[in-house]
């Protein structure tokens, strides 16, 4: 027994000598660095192969020479010039930004009160979770079905027109409901609202109820408490929600394609149609511009609040 203990001590001393006399703390730190590296390497590898590399490729291809049916690796700025001088493409860039801004505002205006209710009014955690699950029930069906479901709703003989006609509010069916920018905005707001509700609810449910009571006790009315306590404390949730919604809306093409009747062409739609007709260089230009817009939006949003510090 004594001998065995002695061997262990000797082994430890040898190990220490083997690592150039590093202190136990240094060896522990080295070990932890190794573990961390092992944990992140699959993700880093994946991202490098399937995100960074393709991104670099897209930028490269955007400078290739495009002919009707082929694309050649001869560097030129033709595709860029064509995009930046065409009113059609600039208009669709503007439409993308405009629809993003409206949908972001709409999801925030509709989503925040819902989150306020679930996160702050409902104090039972089981019920909170149940209500959040209710919010994601639409996601049990496919994306396309959710989008197409708006057609019988908004169409000329759709539910809304029928109801308005029956109530005598209108005489002829509204034709602007479906196949218009309005339809795209409604469809996108409905689909992406839950991505706003989730993060805000999470932040609101972390507010200690006694903090709000304390503010009341100090004499503040509801408005002051909302703008000085509740809103600042939930702001990280708003930012995270806004990033989710922004990334998804800016890259959208399906909702616009199926609800606008080809009237609304977002950057996403341009990429799809250009790829469809094998215009790789031009599709790459649109891709680079879209990626730049998304990166700018995220940067601005992250500037508003230091999410890392607040979470």
């Amino acid at each position, binding site marked *: 027994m004594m001998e065995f203990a002695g061997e262990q001590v000797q082994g430890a001393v040898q190990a220490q000598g083997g690592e150039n006399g590093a202190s136990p703390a240094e060896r522990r730190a080295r070990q932890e660095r190794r573990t961390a590296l092992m944990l992140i390497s699959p993700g880093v590898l994946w991202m490098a192969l399937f995100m960074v590399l393709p991104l670099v490729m897209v930028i490269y291809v955007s400078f290739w020479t495009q002919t009707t049916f082929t694309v050649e690796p001869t560097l030129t700025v033709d595709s860029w010039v064509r995009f930046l001088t065409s009113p059609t493409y600039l208009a669709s860039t503007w439409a993308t930004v405009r629809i993003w801004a409206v949908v972001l505002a709409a999801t925030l205006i509709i989503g925040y009160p819902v989150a306020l209710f679930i996160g702050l009014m409902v104090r039972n955690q089981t019920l909170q979770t149940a209500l959040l699950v209710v919010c994601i029930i639409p996601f049990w069906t496919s994306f396309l079905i959710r989008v197409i479901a708006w057609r019988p709703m908004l169409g000329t003989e759709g539910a809304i027109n029928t109801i308005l006609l029956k109530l005598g509010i209108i005489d002829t069916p509204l034709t602007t409901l479906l196949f218009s920018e309005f339809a795209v905005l409604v469809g996108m707001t409905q689909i992406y609202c839950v991505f706003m509700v989730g993060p805000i609810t999470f932040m609101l449910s972390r507010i200690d109820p006694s*903090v709000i*009571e*304390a*503010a009341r*006790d*100090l004499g*503040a009315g509801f408005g002051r408490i909302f703008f000085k306590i509740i809103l600042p*404390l939930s702001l990280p949730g708003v930012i995270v929600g806004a990033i989710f919604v922004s990334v998804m809306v800016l890259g959208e093409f399906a909702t616009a394609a199926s609800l606008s009747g080809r009237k609304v062409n977002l950057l996403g739609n341009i990429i799809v149609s250009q790829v469809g007709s094998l215009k790789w260089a031009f599709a790459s230009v649109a891709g680079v511009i879209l990626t730049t817009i998304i990166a700018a939006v995220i940067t601005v949003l992250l500037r508003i609040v230091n999410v890392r510090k607040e979470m």
Partner: protein
Amino acid sequence: MLSLNSVTKRYGAFTALDRLSVTIPDDAYVSLLGASGSGKTSLLRVIAGFEEPDSGTVSYDGKHLNGVAPHRRGIGFVFQNFALFPHLSVENNIAFGLRYREQEPVVDPADVRQRVADIVRLVGLEGLEARKVTAISGGQRQRVALARTLVTEPRMVLLDEPLGALDANLRERMCDELRAIRERLKVTFLHVTGSETEALLMGDTVAVLSAGSVAQIAPASSLFSAPLNADVARHLNAYNVLSGKAEGGHFHADGARFPLPDHPVPQDGAPVDVALRFDRISVVAADAAEPLDAVIPARFVASEFNGSSVLSFFRMDDGTLLQVVAHLSGPPPRSFESGALYKLAFDPRDVISFTERAA
């Protein structure tokens, strides 16, 4: 002067406050002693207005507070967990009430700064104004919570176990400071605690809350020396409480019989509770010959050494546990033999009897 009149508050089938009536005087330090679950926090929440009573009235200087929102009552509340605004600095936490209250907010920034500086000096937070409240110690957070309430100049401050989250030596220091701050500001502090030492130390007046109503409210010293009923005596954690019957002017229970005091007059055969202070009992050997006025035979269980005193536990034959305190300033106490029989001797004049038994 705050008055509660027959206030009842129920949570489902549980009655937290049961027809509670009490009057809290102006310019006083009142401590409210109660075990957990006695309705302490419910009482504070009803006074502050976070909750409305099911019946009964709350009034201040004769004016009804029922239905008045918390932010219009002028009553400050210091939360047990401090409830500081986590996104604001110490200074902005303290200034919150002044800037954002609905009634008469202080709009002049210089005025706000001056008042915050005054209160910061009063509670001893100088130099920490710009810190985030998440970056200061527990004791400092306690001071911020107190300053944040005091700066709004409430007519009354409710403190919900304000020292509960602090460690022992900090607690003692805060005790002194709380009393000093209150005396300087001349407002009423209502300090809720589950600790009898804290209640007696802090309060000019002590109220004992038991089963949802106030069992006794009296100056600290008279409450301690003359508890009104067995329940109050139990809360003070300084009395052995025995239940028995009165027989011929004597207390009678299994294994104990001794003379009862003349007041209140003992009725023969009536149930009676007696209270006997831990430190008024001396322990003598079972075979001691000297005549004694009153004794209870009991077996020694165990002792606890508390620094300046020794607390010993004895068990009577019927299982009742008795506590005896020997102060070490006197002659060194003998050590007792576990399981051995002793006589617990006392002066019958030290016995307090209660003829009306608390339900």
